[in-house]
């Protein structure tokens, strides 16, 4: 198991009720897992906890056998080696595509950085856009750059927070297929967060259905979607 979450508890400062109580969950190496749930179900918060952007009140998180946090330890986000693609991409507006992608490549020399940057631009099919600024790109192009940037430092785990929600539906399908292709090719462990059943079905090796901070079901996409058909169709009417 690549990511192990055990007895995790978390509550937001301004809310009385805990979002998670005793949440335990595992993610396997090389697998594309999708966390499916309505907004407010806690799926994005779970990503933030794994990335180290939020501090849990109890429980432990291990990534690749290494303790990220438990009772006494807390590893800062920059030391976790986890990539995160944000919902609105969060490309640095004052940097070009090239600079954005090179941003996380701290341990390389100039030549290596350049090579890695070019490699990633080729993977996402954006070779001609290195000198553009984020605002000069379309939504889909920004999305690809965000993916390239997150993958550049070679993270052991990459996570996506509602990656298609800012794209129009036609583009959504295209990008989704591309993304799936890239992930399969690189064999990187990945976690997706989405509220879209179709996305979950198309991209996931496994679906984790989340509801009110609890795991309602998990398993292969067809099975999970079939078992919870009624509830899912109600939620999205």
């Amino acid at each position, binding site marked *: 198991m690549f990511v192990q979450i055990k007895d995790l508890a978390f509550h937001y400062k301004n809310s009385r009720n805990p979002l998670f109580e005793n949440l335990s969950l595992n993610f396997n190496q090389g697998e594309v897992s999708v966390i499916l749930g309505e907004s407010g179900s806690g799926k994005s918060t779970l990503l933030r906890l794994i990335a180290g952007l939020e501090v849990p009140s109890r429980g432990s998180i291990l990534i690749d056998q290494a303790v990220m946090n438990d009772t006494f330890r807390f590893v800062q986000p920059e030391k976790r080696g986890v990539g995160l693609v944000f919902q609105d991409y969060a490309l640095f507006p004052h940097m070009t595509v090239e600079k954005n992608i090179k941003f996380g490549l701290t341990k390389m020399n100039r030549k290596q950085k350049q090579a890695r940057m070019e490699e990633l631009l080729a993977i996402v099919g954006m070779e001609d856009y290195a000198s553009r600024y984020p605002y000069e790109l379309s939504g889909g192009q920004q999305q690809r750059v965000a993916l390239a940037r997150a993958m550049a*430092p070679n993270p052991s785990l990459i996570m996506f927070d509602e990656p298609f929600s800012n794209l129009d539906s036609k583009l959504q399908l295209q990008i989704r297929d591309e993304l799936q292709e890239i992930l399969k090719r690189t064999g990187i462990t990945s976690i997706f967060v989405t509220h879209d059943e179709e996305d979950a079905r198309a991209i996931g090796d496994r679906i984790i259905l989340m509801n009110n901070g609890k795991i309602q079901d998990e398993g292969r996409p067809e099975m999970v979607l079939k078992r919870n058909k009624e509830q899912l169709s109600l939620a999205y009417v």
Partner: protein
Amino acid sequence: MYFIRKMRSQFNSWALLSVIFSTLILLPALLIMVQLFAESNENWEHIKEFMLKNYIVNSVTLVGFTGLFTVLIGVSAAWLVSAYKVPMHRFFKWGLILPLAIPPYIGAYTYHGILNYTGVIQTSLRNQFGIKVDQKFFDIMNIPGAVFIFTMFLYPYVYIITKSFLENQSSSLIENARLLGKGSFMTFIQVVLPVSRAAIVGGVSLVILEVFNDYGVVKYFGIQTFSTAIFQAWFGMGDIYSAIKLAGTLMFIVVLILILEKVIRGRKQYSYSTSKVRPLQPKELKGWKKFAVLSFFISLFALAFGIPFIQLIHWVYMTYDVILNTAFVDLIWNSVFVASIGSVLIIIVALIIANFSRLSKGWMGKLFSKITVLGYSIPGAVIAIGVLTLFLSLDEKVFTLYEWLGLEPTLVLSLSISMLIFAYVVRFLAVGFNSIESGFDKVGTVFTEASRTLGMSVTKTFFKVDIKMIKGAIAGGFILVFVDILKELPLTLILQPFNFYTLATKTFQYASDERIHEASVSSMVIICISALSIFFLHRVLEKEPK
């Protein structure tokens, strides 16, 4: 356990620096608070028995009437500018902010110069028309005169805040009132006034703080208030003890007023939440209404900026060849020097505390941001006394150290310029902090988080990402602080080292010596720099959509 983990995730050099800076900022105010309850001496007993009541009555009268008139003028100007279109509309929109460039003490002596026996009005009447007037109609060196001065040069605080509220927040309410058949006046009374209450209270509390802070106007006009009393206790009697007691009492009153502000404003903030911000469309005015509104704008602009400005230009023309010499260059150098160092320090401290407070999300961050804002509520003279007490007690320690080392003992710290600059930081940190905090608010934390997940530490993220994304806010904050320090009078008067003058204190000295013509050149420099910064902030940072 959770606490330990939380501390671990957040405790870093940013937290440590924030703790140190906040403590330093808080120290002068704390020292005054402590001393307020110390035993009293003879001077203080005398002040308390015979003079304190007078100080309170005068200060409260000034504050009360100035508050009332700035609300009347500021709110009606804001409403007329936002709701109606008259010729030169765009000019008045920001021109009515310009009086803020004239510090009230400069306005005070300029108006006195215009109106007194040798002033332009009376000499013209005498020489051209042979009319001799009764002096009592032209004497403004009294409480009503001071209220006039404060109102003219401070109403823009109410005007700016109310105007931006009306323009951005209230369009649907006002349009609905019109559709429901309310005339302009009733809309104003029934809708505009109630919905903009929070904004008006916010603006007028700034006015009130400025009036309490003032020393120049009341001293020049010979009105006894807390500020003049603090100066007299310290410079007249050399009695820091009574100065502290007076400062403490004034601080107490200011805190009461701030609490009152919170109560009146209630839970309302300056803005209420509507997701769509649609600017209010001004309506074209016709006929006598157009004429009336236009004359209101013209007279307000003339009284609060045009007339004193033209008079100052005339005086500059009369005196520039005497004033412009190497001593004047020194003066400008001094002012720019202290203002630059003060502003740079303030921006650095503000960046550190604001960054910590936004990333920690906890009570500690909130507490620090509250402390930084404290100084702006406390009148300059009070801060000066607090800082003086702090540095004197530090000097005592240094003094002993020097004696012990066998060196010539001197008052190192309390005679140095570092004391003055430290006091500026305490007083104006809020100005820089607010600007930077709102810059951070606009950007959010997502870019910081992106950078952290890409392997950058908090500090590296700060230099590579955060600071670059709020460049505008940093520049804006720097300009505001710089101008505030440049204009600052009471605090500088108390703490300036021997034989060290700034533009503001030299202006005041000239005016006090009844050499008001000579004061005009330095006044003009202050006004022009302030006006430029207002223009810059208004046009560049709040660029109007065309």
